[in-house]
């Protein structure tokens, strides 16, 4: 444009200037989007818009008895001792084979169908504290098993008294029994934590930074140590998404079913729903305790599902999943991957088959990839993708499912 004095107007910018400017603009826009989509933390409130009828844990017949209902247990002085009761299993399976007989600890449970109700607990308390070393109590221990809670279902799985027995791959107390097995499966290494709990509140979930929100993450190690997690795996990694059903510890945080929904109820049963089958109000009335939303369901009513489509499902990758045998008996499974020579990872079909071989009645897939992490006694137990031995190299998580002692 020329002005009135006749000065020459500048012409259009040359292409060698325009193209880099366009690239810069593209990069700036992408970075701005990425900041709002991934980085900026956004604390969210529980979903109260629908006035979900939250199940009242006080009236839960399967819950841990309250302090007023319990009798006082005498505590005994602790003395250190060695424990060699559990044996480490390291078997191997091919994709088509069943679990070897030596590796039946995780799969030895009877695969009851979901929905089966457990025995109601008796009014006997438990108040074990986490021991950091292998210890046992010197004082006289009860000679009869405590049949409260799901102790009646697995009387030999729990300690009779307050004794806590821990090895490198197992933990046994009055309320919790977990044994981790390292299995070889489809050129990959799978870690199967066979978990028994006496009461449902021994199995719980935690948010990163104890906050529900978007783009809120935390390293798994401090998270596990803060909550005294005995065994823990990563959860849904929901903080990157706006979809999914998020119910944790009886509180509904989000109700946007997008895919399958896994539901753990007040009575310890587990059930998975299709996207259109799930109704939050109904399930909250039914006593929904924890939901899992990463999807898909792997085993349903004892039937191993297959034919999962999509690149995420069909690639060889690290996997994490939750398996259900019967109320009080669960499996937490992590498969390492993307590490040629050690563990290449598995597809979702293979993962479902693994749960089938373990004998689970229900199984549900959780977030995988770099998120696949299993922690035992606050330390990383598996070998996650891109893990170099330092906790700082772990991918930060948005949530975890774990088993822990409940005190007080």
């Amino acid at each position, binding site marked *: 444009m020329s002005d009135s004095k*006749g000065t020459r107007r500048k012409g*259009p910018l040359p292409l060698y200037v325009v193209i880099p400017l*366009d690239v810069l603009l593209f990069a700036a826009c992408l970075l701005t*989007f990425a900041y709002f*989509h991934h980085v900026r933390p956004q604390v969210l409130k529980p979903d109260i818009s629908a006035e979900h009828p939250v199940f009242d844990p006080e009236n839960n017949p399967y819950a841990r008895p309250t302090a007023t209902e319990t009798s006082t247990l005498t505590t005994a002085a602790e003395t250190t001792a060695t424990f060699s009761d559990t044996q480490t299993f390291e078997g191997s399976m091919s994709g088509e084979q069943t679990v070897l007989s030596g590796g039946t600890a995780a799969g030895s449970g009877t695969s009851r169908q979901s929905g089966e109700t457990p025995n109601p607990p008796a009014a006997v308390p438990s108040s074990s504290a986490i021991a950091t070393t292998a210890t046992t109590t010197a004082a006289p221990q009860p000679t009869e098993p405590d049949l409260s809670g799901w102790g009646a279902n697995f009387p030999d799985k729990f300690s009779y008294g307050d004794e806590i027995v821990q090895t490198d791959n197992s933990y046994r107390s009055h309320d919790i029994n977990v044994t981790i097995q390292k299995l070889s499966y489809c050129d990959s290494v799978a870690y199967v934590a066979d978990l028994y709990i006496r009461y449902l509140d021994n199995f719980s979930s935690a948010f990163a930074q104890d906050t529900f929100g978007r783009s809120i993450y935390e390293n798994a190690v401090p998270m596990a140590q803060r909550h005294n997690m005995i065994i823990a795996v990563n959860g849904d990694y929901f903080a990157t998404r706006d*979809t999914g059903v998020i119910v944790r510890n009886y509180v509904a945080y989000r109700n946007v079913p997008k895919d399958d929904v896994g539901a753990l109820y007040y009575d310890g049963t587990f059930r998975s729903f299709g996207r259109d089958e799930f109704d939050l109000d109904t399930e909250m009335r039914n006593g929904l305790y924890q939901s899992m939303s990463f999807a898909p369901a792997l085993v349903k009513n004892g039937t191993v599902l297959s034919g999962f489509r999509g690149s995420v499902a069909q690639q060889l990758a690290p996997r994490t999943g939750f398996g259900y045998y019967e109320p009080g008996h669960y499996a937490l499974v992590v498969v390492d991957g993307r590490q040629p020579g050690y563990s290449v990872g598995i597809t979702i079909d293979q993962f479902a088959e693994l749960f089938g071989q373990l004998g689970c009645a229900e199984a549900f897939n959780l977030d995988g990839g770099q998120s696949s992490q299993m922690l035992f006694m606050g330390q990383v137990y598996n070998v996650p993708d891109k893990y170099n031995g330092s906790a700082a190299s772990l991918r930060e998580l948005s949530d975890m499912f774990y088993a822990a002692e409940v005190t007080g």
Partner: protein
Amino acid sequence: MKALKTIWRGICAFLPHLLLTYGLMLLTFFVINIFNEPMGFLNSHVSRVFEIEYFAAAVLMTAIAIIENRLCVTAFVYLCVACAFILPVFRAVRVDSPLPLDTVYFRVMSLVFSLATIAFAVAQIVLGRADAKKRYEAENAEASEPETAPETSEPETPAPKTETESEPESSEEQPPSIREDESKKAARRR
């Protein structure tokens, strides 16, 4: 008024580049969504804001194209594509849920819209640059001419003839110094 005109020209020049960027972003999200759907690049609240902003830019670009009479029919078709893309987004906003976006239709429209945007924006940029170049040349020529120089484009005009006016029409846009040289050469030839 002059400032408004400058701003308008600035918007006209910048918008195709912004739209090209948005188109590339949507294409990127579409590809990521194929491989990593759980990240929700097409479904999240942030994505929804981006998509509405993108649609607004597309509508504005269409309006500019029609006002400037540049690829009017193409602009209209592009507007239809944009509307088809944004409908499920508005539906998702209305029910405050990302779920209506999770359809094959929306994914296909994302691809179509991003490709259409890239093509339309590139065409607008190319044509806009060509127009700007023409305008630049014309305005420079005008600016180079003496302010008192009478118009010579119409031979019927009974204006007093000068040296420069006697030159052929093809030399009208040349600078006066060149024209003077050529008239001297012609006189010598005569």
